[in-house]
């Protein structure tokens, strides 16, 4: 299990098929990122069914490439439209849009791209160096530890997703409830299936994910169709002085490195999404600057800080995922589903049992970064045009992919009805400000949490004292309790939760 194996896997991973798969993922992600309103988790949920016919390596690399592409692409609309393609690029718009208005749109885009790519590559390297040694200690994480960490992740994500704690509890509770549907994992007896054979393996993940994330979002978007973009957008012109130069790069490099650090740290913690990372990084860059008053008026460092952190979060979120099988956010949770579809259990033994697969994925991730740089650099004009595609063209296309993706699952009409039901649920949750992130993560985590909790209770024979021998589990139980208490106190003191950032 040495690091040179990653290099060997890289050589093997670089086939034409993987190149096309990963490149396609990045391109698709880039386009989705550019279009405001289409978010990363929407793209992943729609793309998972497309991966059925790919090998596990290409499928996962495709989806990760897609994630990375959205993070880089979202900067384009943030800079040219002042409408970030992702919530996490909102910080990019703060300086990117003013800079574009000042006649430097191309420079702003190039700064965003370079910050994205560097943040991405560096965080991927950190992931490789952290995840590989992690595999050696992974067996220390038994059912007690897993149950404790999962409970912690659930509470943490719920706490950060905004809205009132009661609405959060309602959303999470509904997710947990739906997560218990299906055959009982020990007795094999059906729970809440109402005689539907289709529900024996639980509510189909794709229906829940595409419904609450993608399809409902299209309903919300179609309500805002009269959005006036023409007046706001900045057009790219031929201007040889409008490009990134070496002094500019040297100036922003420290900001990029700091942004990568912030993004990696935030990404590795469950529950904190890219939005937290980019705004935290932006704030730190502003604090560290000698000229903080220029931030928000077109300071290149603002773009670099936001974009590098935004992209660094994505590989870093895979540290808990590859190490323990615990998703840090919705996108990572969807990746677990994708692994399962390809017959791979994400967990402590993943790296040990499938090292070649994981090494190839690492190599694929680096490849994705390089492709992203090339695509972003040479496709600047093309992507700038995409910001002008009107929503009445985008929405029907996305709806088509939602329905087609569900049909590919093989559930037939039953699947479409369930999909529609979840689209309606997602729409109402968004309208009434219930966190669908909490709902979805609770839904995905519940089967794992139930299994590990059940194992812990049976193996300990009901003896709580066993936790004294399991310091890691005890630590996370304490953290969970602390997070819960903090949340409750804050809700009652101010009527509002601690933070208000989506976990994706």
């Amino acid at each position, binding site marked *: 299990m040495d690091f040179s194996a990653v290099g060997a896997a890289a050589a093997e991973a670089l086939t034409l098929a993987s190149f096309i798969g990963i490149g396609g993922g990045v391109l698709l992600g880039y386009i989705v990122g550019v279009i405001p309103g289409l978010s990363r988790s929407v793209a992943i949920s729609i793309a998972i069914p497309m991966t059925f016919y790919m090998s596990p390596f290409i499928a996962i690399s495709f989806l990760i490439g897609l994630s990375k592409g959205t993070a880089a692409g979202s900067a384009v609309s943030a800079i040219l439209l002042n409408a970030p393609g992702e919530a996490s690029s909102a910080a990019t718009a703060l300086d990117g849009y003013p800079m574009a208005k000042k006649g430097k749109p191309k420079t702003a885009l190039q700064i965003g791209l370079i910050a994205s790519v560097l943040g991405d590559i560096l965080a991927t390297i950190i992931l490789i160096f952290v995840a590989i040694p992690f595999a050696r200690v992974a067996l220390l994480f038994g059912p007690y530890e897993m149950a404790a960490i999962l409970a912690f992740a659930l509470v943490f994500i719920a706490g950060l997703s905004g809205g009132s704690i009661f609405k959060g509890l309602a959303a999470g509770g509904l997710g947990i409830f739906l997560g218990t549907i299906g*055959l009982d994992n020990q007795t094999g007896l059906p729970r809440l299936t109402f005689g539907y054979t289709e529900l024996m393996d639980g509510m189909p993940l794709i229906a829940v994910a595409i419904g609450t994330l993608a399809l409902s979002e299209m309903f919300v978007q179609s309500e805002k169709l009269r959005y006036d973009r023409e007046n706001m957008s900045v057009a790219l012109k031929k201007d040889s002085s409008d490009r990134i130069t070496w002094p500019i790069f040297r100036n922003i490099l420290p900001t990029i490195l700091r942004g990568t650090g912030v993004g990696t740290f935030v990404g590795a913690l469950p529950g904190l999404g890219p939005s937290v990372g980019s705004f935290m990084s932006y704030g730190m860059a502003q604090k560290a600057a000698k000229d903080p008053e220029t931030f928000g008026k077109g300071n290149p460092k603002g773009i670099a800080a936001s974009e590098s952190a935004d992209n660094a979060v994505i590989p870093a979120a895979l540290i808990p995922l590859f190490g323990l099988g615990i998703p840090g956010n919705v996108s990572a949770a969807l990746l677990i589903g994708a692994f399962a579809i390809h*017959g791979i259990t994400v967990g402590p033994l993943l790296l040990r049992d499938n090292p070649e697969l994981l090494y190839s994925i690492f190599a694929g991730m680096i490849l994705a970064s390089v492709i992203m740089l090339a695509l972003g650099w040479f496709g600047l004009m093309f992507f700038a045009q995409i910001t002008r595609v009107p929503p009445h063209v985008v929405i029907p296309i996305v709806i088509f992919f939602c329905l087609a993706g569900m049909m590919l699952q093989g559930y037939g009409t039953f699947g479409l009805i369930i999909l529609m039901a979840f689209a309606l649920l997602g729409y109402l949750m968004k309208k009434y400000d219930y966190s669908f992130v909490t709902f979805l993560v609770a839904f995905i985590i519940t089967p794992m949490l139930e299994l590990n909790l059940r194992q812990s209770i049976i193996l300990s024979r009901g003896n709580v004292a066993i936790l004294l021998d399991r310091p890691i589990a005890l630590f996370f139980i304490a953290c969970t309790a602390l997070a819960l208490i903090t949340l409750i106190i804050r809700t009652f003191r101010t009527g509002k939760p601690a933070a208000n950032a989506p976990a994706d």
Partner: protein
Amino acid sequence: MKKTLVAILGATILGAPMAMAADWPTRPLTMVIGFNPGGSTDIQGRVLANVMEEFLGQPVNVVNQPGGGSAVAFTRLKNTDADGYTFLFGGTTALTFTPIITPVEYEIDDFEYLASVALGQNAIVTSAEQPFSTFDEIIAHGKENPMTYAQQTPLDEAIIRAIAEEEGLDLAIVPTGGGGGMAPLVLGREVDFAYSGGTHAQYTPTGEMVVAAFMSSERSPFYPDVPTLIELGYDYSIEDYRTIIVPAGVPDDVKERLIAAAEFASTHQSFIDITEGNTFFPVVMIGQDEMEANVRRIRAATEEVMAD
């Protein structure tokens, strides 16, 4: 157009057998797999599909219909046309076991069991780092100490529970949710021993996992020294035949063609290599008469075990 009409008339007048004969199939076939891609059934099924394609001269497309341990796939198969163009490849647990504990919409008689080409590998495994490695040692250890066992199906749980009662063991049984969940529990020594449906093929070559006993009715050729539960004096077994299954009512000569394709596959080198080399499942060729009897015999035996 005219030709089609003549063909249809011909088929109607002369009856299906004549029209089908040796030129069947005339269009692509569908092989249904009741599990997700990547598992042992899927790996074997995809190779089998390639080999059958070679024999039948028409593409055999693999479709995964996971859910309820193949219950979803069997429910659908029951409702497809009995023309032989759609068939299922997989184990028979969804017929011999699932209906006993869960209401399902199909029964054994809804299908025909044409041929079995591979035998399952149900085993009891433990970690190489445990102080015991044979089944007798596990039992001896359990008489002195409380023990833990990781199950994967209610059937293996029922068998182990019965043995534990006979031997007077203090045994706690945990669910694992499948072979992927079992391995970390055994290797991390969170549990003392566990059921394995085939996952051990991945861990015994590295010396980390030990097979203590087989739950199948015969020893595995890949672990010739490991006894079965029956040999150890416990009258229980779990048999798993990977079988080609069609809805009841498929014309006889179509069935013959499918059985011939299965026979061809059972002697085909690439099918043997993948099945025996990658999944440690012995390749066999068991015909329809024997399989029909097997399915019904296993069902009766399972009902008896589960009734306890």
